[in-house]
């Protein structure tokens, strides 16, 4: 009923190919954007910003980057966290070497470094595929984390070996470091995430996106119809690593405030891969749904016993939490192996014809 499409006629090719051929989808997105841009900032507490809104956005962006590579171009990667690390360390070096640099520019530029490294580690993808490629990207994971530990120049020879975000200003307002207010950081993250999501939606719907999908579905068939596989795979690596690198810079500069090398170790890569898989490979919205499930849900569950006034040990809550989230992941993967985005698509289809299914 709410999703009735009757009366929405497509009179031109442009309207038929629109991002939202159904009006209700556009309205839904409008509501979500309104929530993210206006309602949440007005109502959210500092706790909500720091543990839900900002991390969910940053993890979604990282998963989006991985999804470009794995979901759209079909190249499995286990090095996401390392590429995030490249972005973070590049950003750190830039703002400490050039303190006059606008932090937003630094964050957007830092992606370029991880794009470069991503392409270098993407070269093996021209010869190897599938699980073997995953192992090649695993090499990037181990090598880069090792480099973050051993190369003192990267962390300015700090005795603790960790990078610490300095106070950075943009137009007289603190945007990073301990002096920055949470709401400013939230808006910086939101601007970057919205911008990159918009770019990615357009990329995946354009020529480049189609070549990626062709490569993913059957690479030698794609080659036969004239797609340059090298270009297709390497652009996927470059764009994916760029987004992941920016996510890494946001991760440290807009949220964590400090980072030690092992933060970018393999558990983070897996976490992002799980977000992408549970959200849905080859979808944009899935990244957000996946991040809400994997990053947001445990935080929300942690507050439940207290809100209900039940006194349980914090450690027990943590154990319960792991069990609940784990079983939910299995549950969702059983009812829809293609991820939450696909689940939503099915629900939507049902809604469109409800209450008169054929």
């Amino acid at each position, binding site marked *: 009923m709410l999703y009735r499409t009757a009366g929405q006629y497509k009179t031109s090719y442009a309207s038929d190919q629109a991002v939202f051929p159904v009006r209700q989808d556009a309205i839904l997105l409008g509501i979500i954007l309104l929530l993210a841009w206006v309602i949440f900032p007005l109502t959210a507490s500092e*706790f909500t910003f*720091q*543990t839900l809104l900002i991390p969910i956005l940053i993890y979604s962006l990282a998963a989006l980057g991985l999804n470009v590579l794995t979901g759209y171009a079909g190249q499995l990667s286990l090095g996401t966290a390392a590429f995030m690390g490249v972005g973070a360390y590049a950003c750190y070096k830039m703002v400490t070497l050039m303190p006059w640099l606008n932090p937003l520019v630094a964050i957007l530029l830092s992606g370029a470094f991880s794009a470069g490294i991503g392409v270098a580690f993407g070269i093996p993808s021209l010869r190897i595929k599938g699980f073997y490629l995953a192992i090649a990207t695993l090499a990037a994971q181990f090598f880069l984390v090792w480099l973050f530990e051993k190369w003192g120049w990267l962390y300015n020879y700090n005795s603790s070996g960790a990078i610490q975000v300095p*106070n950075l200003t943009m137009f007289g307002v603190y945007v990073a470091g301990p*002096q920055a207010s949470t709401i400013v950081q939230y808006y910086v993250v939101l601007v970057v995430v919205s911008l990159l999501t918009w770019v990615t939606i357009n990329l995946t719907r354009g020529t480049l996106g189609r070549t990626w999908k062709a490569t993913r579905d059957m690479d030698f068939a794609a080659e036969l119809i004239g797609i340059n596989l090298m270009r297709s795979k390497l652009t996927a690596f470059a764009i994916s690593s760029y987004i992941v690198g920016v996510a890494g810079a946001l991760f440290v500069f807009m949220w*964590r405030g*400090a980072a030690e090398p*092992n933060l970018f170790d393999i558990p983070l890569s897996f976490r992002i891969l799980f977000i992408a898989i549970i959200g849905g490979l080859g979808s944009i919205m899935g990244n957000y749904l996946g991040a809400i499930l994997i990053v947001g849900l445990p935080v929300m569950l942690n507050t439940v016993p207290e809100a209900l006034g039940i006194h349980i040990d914090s*450690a027990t809550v*943590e154990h319960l939490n792991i069990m609940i989230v784990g079983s939910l992941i299995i549950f969702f993967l059983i009812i829809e192996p293609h991820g939450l985005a696909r689940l939503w698509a099915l629900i939507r289809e049902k809604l469109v014809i409800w209450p008169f299914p054929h």
Partner: protein
Amino acid sequence: MKHFTKMALAATVAAGLCTSAAADIYAPNLSYRTGPFAATGIPLMNGQKDYFTMINERDGGIGGVKIEFDECETGYSTEKGVECYEKTKGRAVVTQPWSTGITLQVLPKTNVDMIPILAPGYGFSPMADGKVFQWAFNAPGSYWDAASMILKFISQDNLDNLKGKKIAFLHLDHPFGKEPLPFLEAKAAQHGFELLPIPVGLKEMQNQSAQWLQIRRERPDYVIMWGWGAMNAGAITEAVKTKFPMENFIGTWWSGHDADLKIVGEDGKGYKSISFSRPMLDAAIQADIKKYVVDAGKSQSNPEEMSGVFYNRGLVISMILAEGIKAAQDHFKVGEINAEQLRWGLENLNVTEERLAELGMTGMVAPFKTSCSDHTGHSGGWVLEWDGKAFVEASDHLTPDSASIQPLEVEKAAEYAAANAPWPINEECK
């Protein structure tokens, strides 16, 4: 359904009663009873918790105000640590971060949020400089204190005895493990001994064969260890396997966990660990803990754990916080102190021999005193030695070489403040 509603109602009422009857000073602890470091975390957390349970039961709190000692589980993960910090900071008078990673993250925020960090014996050594780190406390001793005492001990109080010797520094490749490096390097250059840093990656903690192969090849005179969690047990079993002389193997205070040594038992005889606390099983406080906490069924601990080094260190750590609260209450003449008042209290700790006797904790920690410029107190400590069954004392009371540590603290603190400018400095403090 009816039944369920009743139960829910009962739970709510019970919880309501709990909160109204309980306490007014909220002192959260970012605990880690889960995750890879849980084995070492649990005894510490139990000790800390039991101390405050005892205080609440025996004395009705501190100065008549009960202490709500709450735990927020981090599993030693920095991400969870931030979550807990944000969750508790609204009401908390103190943050006990319990991991160097979380400390590093919370430290710069303290000036803005105005909540004192209490990191007894861990965190960032330059936190001792209270003029720069106004909100951070690592009493009674810093890692540089520990390193200094270890060097003093192995050189029989004269560092020049180490000239020409070779000392391997086996450490976790992590901010925590690297912490004493600047101090050890400075000392090596000054006294002419060779320092050989051997890092152990987080992934290699349980399998240190490569590191011990290097130690066997290099034949160092001493091995100093900065290990935590699974790394300690890994190193100790590997040392036994390679037949490294245990009496020349000495760890920091987080490397002296009874359970790690019980694995090797007699073979670990002679292994040493520096410590700012001692388990005193006949101290008066033990009887009170037994009476008010254990016998009342309010402890999660067990007799074996309670005789260990870490449980007793947990008691000492909570005592430091309790003394800070008391100092603040006495000074400001209020019961329910706030975070800012507690900062004053922690800055004016004076744990004397007499006070320790009053608390029934004589000998469990050495007397110390903090001030606005010294947030550590530098109590010194003892060397504990594993005798095959338990840790026993193997030295007199040692003190760190504060004269040589202090300039380094000031220098590193100034560096930190410069990197994090604008950083407020306590100018009033002389």
